[in-house]
Structure formats: structure tokens, C-alpha cells
């Protein structure tokens, strides 16, 4: 049995599980059945994908007599899809593990259980599809299943609106991909990926297909300015689904982009890298700025997904440029950075969403302003969340540092490009990337500090209790992998080199042979990084410092009332808040990215009412692009509404005119 057939039977098992989940949703064992089954299937597919990635280089095409009659459904697993299968099934297994614990608290299981395995199956099918029709069908299936999950709690807050915006944007993205594939397919109807590779279109057509793919896959991944649905939809779903959507589904979109742009169309012009680099840099910066402004924990994480997608796309832009100018090892470096960051982001974003979900189920709060001091009640969750925060802020010795460092190494190679535009653009992108990395660190200092440190701001935070053991396991597995990928990155880089050489037909030098588990992206004389040494240094110095402090300071410790400056019983509301944390940055960037208005309502002397400080935050992109678009759609709808009020004869005339127009078109067709 070929690997393709095994993957397809895994997907079929997931779909069967979806049906079983729908039928037995009300039964008490349904959650255990669905999430346990999904965990087992995802784990099996994870092992299978790892074997495919490390062992075999090329799959063979499996054609099933499904779908369009003259095409059939084609499936193929190559190294690229095997790598993404690893990412998806790792995330899927972790989310299922979390789901095992969360299933008991789910108040409407019938809205979640059938769609969770269907969502996993849809994502897996996208990765093994090898013709445009199957790809788009699976893609749309994935979108619809995730939409159903977003709408699971449709009565709460803005969830229905989030679902609506998501559905519109998902349809738009799929439409763009459809057009892109139509341009890539030969006029004879070569919708199989093999046929597209064999007959690449002319550069102009390929360029248009590339732009459409950037828009289509990018809207799913969440690039600015197509990101608007993402921070609405991702937090609306149940927490483990948020983790799947943010950590995993965006990776399917990234896969779609790589598949079309690197594999099927291939760079056919130096300018291809320019829009990708600009979009990537803009996405990274704006994503993190928006994230900093949030005080809803899950929404903050969702905006951070936008930022990380930007970092990944910067890697892709560099890889496109290096590939076009014939620098395969540099292209491989940029591609490795992007793919490694894809893998890393799926790890720590899943971890952070699980943490946010644990906080949500323990306190019922997503708003950081109502949390605080959770490290006392939820020490294990806090530890895992801290690991995720350090990893996503690109702090060594964790994995986020490695992939961002590799991206910077690729940017440092850009002066060797023979295009002045790129020579100027790439360092600018590097500067923006550095800025967004620093802002991300600030953002997670805020997220962790306000949520877990200090004192509880509400009673629900005060009485929180540690989450269940499944959720803890779901957090600690990615946390351990974050550390492993940061300490021995060479192993991970070597493992994904087949996928890299699939995409850019070059590979980085093998890292396994270098002494002391260092990595050297180009040459050891130029730059190298040793995660193990950094880890040991940090561990030793931190434990030395801790022991010194314990020996000399712990005895001298005494507990006194906090902030006791003449106010003996200060309330927790006097603590630093999330808003105040973000305020300096909001002041600096307020005019650029947000439409901020601060209004201070100061009472006159003698008045007894309190002073009020009002802050309104707008989204410039929404005001500039989406609001006019929505208005024009509404105006058009009002105009077209007149068609509802014609007389019988006018309706007949409309039909007649349409018929005549079509006949005239037929007669005058060249």
C-alpha cells in the first residue's frame, strides 16, 4: 500500500469519525471517542509523514476515479507536502489531546464534535491533493468546516459577525486561487499538477497567477491587508480549534502559496520577490502593533499569527529573489528559515492558545484586565505559557530565535543580489523585521506579565484552579519540542532539507556533522550558532544566580503590603494594566497604524463627578479599504432591488433582451 493510500485512509477514518461525532454528539462518551480517535489517527499520520519526509524523496501519483470525469482525483505526497503533513498532524494531535480534557466543559458538543475531525481531514486532503480540482475542493471543505467551528458558539458576542466576515473572505480567497489555477492550467485543461509543471505558462500569465496566488493563499494565511477576518474568527472558536486555526490552518495556506509559487509557477521574473517582501514586512510590523493594542488574550494571539505569517513571507520573498538570481544555497537558507519558522510557529502558537484556553476555562475571562496573579493558582500552565512567550519572542535558547536568526542571515546575504531595488529593499525589510521582533517581545512581556503576574484583579482570577492533565500534556509536548528545536536546530534543519530542495532545488550544507551541534548556515567562518551552549550558559548562570539569591536574600525576605504608600489597603486595580503597558507604543505609532483619539473629560473644580479618560482605537485598513467596499456593495444592492418591482411585461422584456444579447454574442464571436 502506497503512502498516498495510507494518508487517504487516514482522512477517510477522520471523516468517519466526523459522522460518528455527529450521530453520537449527545452521548457522554462522544468527546472521548472523537478526540481520542482523532489523536490516534493524527499520531499515526504524523509517524507516516515523518517516515516519508526522512526516508523517501518522491511519491508516486495515485489517481482515483472521483471528481471531474476527465481528470480524476490525483494524490501525491512529496517531501514538501510530507513536511507540512508533519506540521499539521503534530498540531492536530496536540489539539485532540487538549480536546480530551475540554470536551467535558463543552456545552454544545453537537456543534463541535462533527466538525473537528472533518476540519483535520480537510487540511490533510489539501496537502496530498495533486490536481487543481481536488486541491480547491479540499481547501473549501477545510474553510467550511472551520467556519462551522467558528460559529459553534454563535450566540456569544460578535461571533456571528466574525463567522460572516470569515466566510466572505474565505470565498474571496478561494476564488482568487481558482483564477490562479485557471491561468496555470494549459488551455487544453491540464489541471493536474504534473501537467502544470510540464507546461509552464508565459511569464506574463505566470506573473498574474502569482499575484492571484499571493492574494488567495495570503488571505487565508492572514497577510495585511487581507487579515481582517483572522483576529475576529480565530478567537471566536473553542480554544483548541483556535489553536488549530492559528497554528495549523494558516500553515496550509502557506503550503498553498509555496506549492503554487515555487513548485508550479516557479519564479519568472526578479520582481516576484518585491511584493512578497513588502507584504511580509508590512504584515509583520502591523500584526505586532495591533497585537500590542489588544487586551483580549486570544485576540492578541491571533494578531500575533498575522505577525508570524509576515516573518514567514519575508523568508519566501528572499528565497524567490535568490532563486531567480541563481543562488541556490542562499535560496535554500531563506527557504529553510521560512519553513522552520512555519514549524516553530505551529508549535508555540498552539501552546499559547492552549494556555489561553486553560486560563479561559479556569476563570471564564479572556480579557487580561480582569486577570492577574494566575501564576500562584496555575503554576504549570504559567510555566508552559512562559516557554511559549519566550519562544515566540525569539529569545534563545528556544526555537523562535533560530528561525528568525536564519532569516536575518538570509537578509545579510542580500547585498550579493544583482538588483539595486532588492539591494535597498532587503535591508529595509530586515530593519522592519528587527523592529517587529522587539515589539513582539514587548507584547509578550505584557501578555505574560498582566495575565500571570501581579495580583488577581477579579474574584474569578483569584479563585482559578490548575487546568486538567490533558491540557497540561497538550501544552508540555509543544513546549518540550520548542526547547528541542532551539537547542539542537541542526537536526531539524537537516530533516526539512528534502522539502527545501523540492521548493528551491538547492539545500543548505548538512548540519549534523558540525562539532558541538552548532549550525552554520553558510560557512563556519561567517556565522554560526550553538543552541546547546547558549542553553547551558543560560541554565548555569540562572541557577547560579538563583542559588546566590536564595542563600543570601531569601532569609532576609519579609512580606509587606504592596504599594503601601500612605494607602494601606490598595486595590488590585492600582496595578499596571495592559492598556498602560501599551500606551507608549500607542503614542508613537498611533498616527501611523491606528486612528487613535484620546479624550480627557476633566470635571470643573468643585464638581464631584470623576474625571474620565476615553480612548477610541480605529483600524485604518478597515476604514480605507473595507468600509468603502461594503458601502458600494450596499449601494449596488439598493439599485438592484428595483428589479424586484417591475411589471410583467418588463420582466418579459428583460428575459427577451438577455436572450437577444446572448444570441448576438454567439453570432459575433470570433
Amino acid at each position, binding site marked *: 500500500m502506497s503512502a498516498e493510500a495510507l494518508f487517504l485512509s487516514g482522512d477517510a477514518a477522520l471523516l468517519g469519525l466526523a459522522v460518528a461525532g455527529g450521530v453520537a454528539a449527545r452521548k457522554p462518551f462522544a468527546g472521548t471517542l472523537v478526540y481520542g480517535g482523532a489523536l490516534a489517527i493524527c499520531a499515526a499520520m504524523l509517524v507516516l509523514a515523518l517516515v516519508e519526509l526522512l526516508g523517501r524523496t518522491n511519491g508516486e501519483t495515485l489517481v482515483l476515479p472521483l471528481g471531474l470525469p476527465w481528470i480524476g482525483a490525483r494524490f501525491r505526497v512529496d517531501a514538501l507536502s510530507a513536511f507540512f503533513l508533519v506540521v499539521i498532524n503534530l498540531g492536530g494531535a496536540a489539539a485532540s489531546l487538549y480536546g480530551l480534557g475540554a470536551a467535558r466543559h463543552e456545552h454544545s458538543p453537537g456543534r463541535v464534535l462533527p466538525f473537528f475531525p472533518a476540519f483535520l481531514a480537510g487540511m490533510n486532503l489539501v496537502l496530498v491533493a495533486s490536481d487543481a480540482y481536488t486541491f480547491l475542493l479540499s481547501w473549501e471543505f477545510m474553510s467550511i468546516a472551520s467556519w462551522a467551528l467558528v460559529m459553534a458558539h454563535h450566540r456569544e458576542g460578535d461571533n456571528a459577525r466574525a463567522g460572516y466576515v470569515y466566510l466572505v473572505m474565505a470565498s474571496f480567497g478561494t476564488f482568487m486561487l481558482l483564477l490562479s489555477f485557471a491561468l496555470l492550467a494549459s488551455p487544453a485543461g491540464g489541471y493536474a499538477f504534473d501537467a502544470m509543471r510540464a507546461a509552464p505558462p508565459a511569464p506574463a500569465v505566470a506573473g498574474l497567477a502569482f499575484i492571484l496566488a499571493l492574494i488567495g493563499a495570503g488571505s487565508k494565511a492572514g497577510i495585511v491587508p487581507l487579515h481582517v477576518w483572522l483576529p475576529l474568527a480565530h478567537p471566536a472558536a473553542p480554544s483548541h480549534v483556535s489553536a488549530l486555526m492559528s497554528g495549523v490552518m494558516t500553515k496550509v495556506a502557506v503550503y498553498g502559496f509555496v506549492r503554487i509559487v515555487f513548485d508550479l509557477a516557479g519564479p519568472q521574473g526578479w520582481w516576484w520577490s518585491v511584493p512578497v517582501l513588502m507584504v511580509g514586512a508590512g504584515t509583520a510590523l502591523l500584526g505586532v502593533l495591533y497585537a500590542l493594542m489588544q487586551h483580549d488574550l486570544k485576540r492578541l494571539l491571533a494578531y500575533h499569527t498575522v505577525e508570524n505569517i509576515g516573518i514567514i513571507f519575508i523568508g519566501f520573498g528572499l528565497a524567490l529573489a535568490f532563486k531567480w538570481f541563481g543562488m541556490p544555497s542562499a535560496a535554500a537558507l531563506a527557504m529553510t528559515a521560512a519553513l522552520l519558522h512555519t514549524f516553530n510557529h505551529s508549535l508555540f502558537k498552539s501552546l499559547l492558545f492552549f494556555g489561553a484556553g486553560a486560563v479561559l476555562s479556569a476563570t471564564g475571562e479572556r480579557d487580561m484586565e480582569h486577570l492577574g496573579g494566575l501564576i500562584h493558582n496555575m503554576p504549570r500552565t504559567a510555566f508552559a505559557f512562559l516557554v511559549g512567550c519566550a519562544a515566540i519572542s525569539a529569545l534563545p535558547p528556544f526555537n523562535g530565535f533560530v528561525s528568525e536568526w536564519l532569516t536575518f542571515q538570509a537578509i545579510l546575504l542580500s547585498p550579493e543580489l544583482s538588483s539595486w531595488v532588492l539591494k535597498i529593499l532587503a535591508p529595509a525589510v530586515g530593519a522592519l523585521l528587527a523592529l517587529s521582533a522587539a515589539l513582539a517581545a514587548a507584547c509578550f512581556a505584557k501578555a505574560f506579565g498582566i495575565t500571570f503576574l501581579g495580583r488577581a484583579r477579579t474574584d474569578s482570577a483569584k479563585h482559578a484552579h490548575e487546568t486538567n492533565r490533558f491540557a497540561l500534556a497538550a501544552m508540555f509536548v509543544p513546549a518540550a519540542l520548542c526547547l528541542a528545536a532551539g537547542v539542537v536546530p541542526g537536526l531539524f534543519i537537516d530533516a526539512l532539507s528534502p522539502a527545501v530542495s523540492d521548493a528551491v532545488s538547492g539545500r543548505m550544507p548538512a548540519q549534523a556533522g558540525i562539532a558541538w551541534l552548532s549550525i552554520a548556515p553558510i560557512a563556519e567562518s561567517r556565522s554560526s550558532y550553538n543552541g546547546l551552549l547558549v542553553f547551558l550558559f543560560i541554565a548555569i548562570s540562572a541557577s547560579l544566580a538563583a542559588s546566590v539569591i536564595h542563600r543570601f536574600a531569601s532569609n532576609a525576605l519579609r512580606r509587606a503590603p504592596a504599594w503601601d504608600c500612605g494607602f494601606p489597603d490598595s486595590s488590585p486595580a492600582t496595578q499596571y494594566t495592559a492598556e498602560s503597558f501599551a500606551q507608549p507604543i500607542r503614542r508613537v505609532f498611533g498616527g501611523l497604524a491606528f486612528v487613535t483619539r484620546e479624550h480627557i473629560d476633566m470635571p470643573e473644580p468643585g464638581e464631584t463627578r470623576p474625571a474620565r479618560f476615553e480612548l477610541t482605537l480605529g483600524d485604518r485598513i478597515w476604514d480605507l479599504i473595507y468600509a468603502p467596499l461594503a458601502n458600494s456593495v450596499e449601494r449596488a444592492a439598493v439599485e438592484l432591488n428595483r428589479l424586484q*418591482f417591475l411589471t410583467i*411585461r418588463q420582466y418579459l422584456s428583460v428575459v427577451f433582451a438577455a436572450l*437577444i444579447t446572448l444570441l448576438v454574442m454567439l453570432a459575433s464571436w470570433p
Partner: protein
Amino acid sequence: MKGLDFDVAHLLAGGLVLISFMLLYQNRLYALLNVFALQAVVLSLSVAWQAYVQDANHLYVTAAIAFAFKAVIIPLALHRIIAELGIQRDVENVVGVGPTMLAGLALVALSEVVMLRIASEADVLAQEDLAFALSVVLLGMLMMVVRRNAVSMVVGFMSLENGLILAAAGAKGMPLVVEISVAFSVLVALVVIGVFLFRISERFETVDAHALDRFRGDQR
């Protein structure tokens, strides 16, 4: 195909188109019904000739159905309806006769161009037949659009059906079932429209379709 067969088929189909034009300028209801009956007679002759040429006996049945229903029963029934309801017998055109005829000419030219282009591989008889059939359909629709009186809208609709039957008879090997169902659909349409006319006239004391629009509940 022999010369005479083709010529006669051509003549009859062309006659149908000509009678469609005659329908367009009739401004009295009884005259309109008579011309419609004439069109049905020519249609049944045309279908019978196709049956003879193609040596397809079931087409004789179609011709008989067309003659019985369209040339006899439906015109008689409409005559009776008009007499019983006391419908005003002169017809008000929305568009004048001259522009209507010009539009009809343009439609015939259009259908010839379309059919000669897209059916260039079919044999000549079928090609001409389809072109004439499309002309009859389009002229029927034109009549429905330019007339305001409900009875003449019904006649336009049924002349449109005549065009469909002409097309069906021209295509070789069209099963009888289809034609019978077409004939019955016309009959059903007549019943429905007849009832409809009675109701309209009872309610509004006119069959001017314009009157209906004034009584629509969703009028803005």
C-alpha cells in the same frame, strides 16, 4: 435530400415565419386567433411533410395533435372566452406596428446568422429548419413583449411553442413522447391561462395586463 423535398420543407417553414409576422400586426382579437389557427395548420402540414421526408410515422401523430389542438380546440376555446367575457376586441400595442415589424426582421436575420454559424455541420434541411424555428420562437417572444392584452400574450406564447415543435420535428429521431408532452404542456398552459383570464376579468373587468400591476401588493 432531393430538391423537391427540401423546397417544400423550406416553403412550409418559411410560411410559418411569414405567419408569425402576420400575427405581429393584427390589431383585432378575432383576426389574431384566425391567423394563429392558420399558423397551426401550416405547422401541422410542415410536420407531416417532415414525417413523409424522414419516413417517420410517429411524426404524423405529432402533426395530428398539432392540428387538433392548435388549429381547432385552442382557437375555438379562446373565441368562446372572448365572447363570454365580452373582452374589448381591439388590441393596444405598446410599440407601433412599423418598429415592431423592423424588430421582427432584425430577429429573423439574427437567428439565420446564429444558426448558419453554429449548425454548419448539420445537413441543410435541419439547419434551415432550426433557423426558421428560432425565428418563430423569437417572434413569439417579441409579441409577448409588445402586446399589452393578456389574450394576445397567450397567443404569442403558443406561437412560441409552435416554433419549438417545428425544431423538434426537424431533428431526426426525436421521440414521440417528447412531442406529446410538449402538446400537453401547451394545453395545460391554455387551461391555466384561461382560468387566469376569467379570474382577472372577474376581478378587474379588463384583461389589460397593465391593470394587474396597479393591484400588486408589493408596489412601492
